[in-house]
């Protein structure tokens, strides 16, 4: 069975400090990977997607970056946090095969508070 693990569960960080959020998918090779973000009271929106190792596409510009160092790992990071980065971050995966790519599967998320 496939599992998706996000870390940390929650973070409280200072403005201007660096950030690194992680996501690991086990039990599925070569998945599509995604980062979603939800501001408090806002709509979930896609930030990044990746269809292969080393390749990441940005969907929304939020002064964040993402990397896929391994097939099963997706990292979201920034060197300087802004107050507007606060919110809830979700990692997700889907199948590569378009014919059977029915849905996205989400992790349990990371709650980020920037002070």
């Amino acid at each position, binding site marked *: 069975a496939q599992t998706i693990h996000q870390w940390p569960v929650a973070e409280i960080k200072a403005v201007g400090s660096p950030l690194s959020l992680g996501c690991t998918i086990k039990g599925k090779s070569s998945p*599509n990977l*995604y980062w*979603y973000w*939800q501001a408090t009271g*806002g*709509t*979930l*929106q*896609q930030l990044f*997607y990746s*269809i292969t190792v080393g390749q990441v*596409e940005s*969907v929304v510009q939020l002064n964040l970056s993402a990397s896929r160092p391994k097939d099963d790992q997706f990292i979201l990071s920034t060197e300087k946090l802004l107050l507007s980065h606060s919110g*809830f971050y*979700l990692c997700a995966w*889907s199948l590569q095969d*378009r014919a059977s*790519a*029915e*849905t*996205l*599967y*989400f*992790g*349990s*998320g990371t*709650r980020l508070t920037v002070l």
Partner: protein
Amino acid sequence: GQQVQQSPASLVLQEGENAELQCNFSTSLNSMQWFYQRPGGSLVSLFYNPSGTKHSGRLTSTTVIKERRSSLHISSSQTTDSGTYLCALEFYGSSGNKLIFGIGTLLSVKP
């Protein structure tokens, strides 16, 4: 403009009452998904429903693509149904799957 509109924005029910949540979209899509968002933020997938009607326990989802709408019916509501219900349009192609979410319906079920 907004591609996904959900209504109502919030709903308060007495336990045992039924709920009808609506999702209207302004663009063509590959499919529609309904999620339950727990108070902590994590998502529970309820339905993947490209068209027609699907049932799961007390939940029913109906998607009518040509009318650009989908609904989620909750029968005999329970206090544990409280939370936010999100619908999302799904597009998939060479860049993988993309979900465009609505703002959600906040459901509160009173005992």
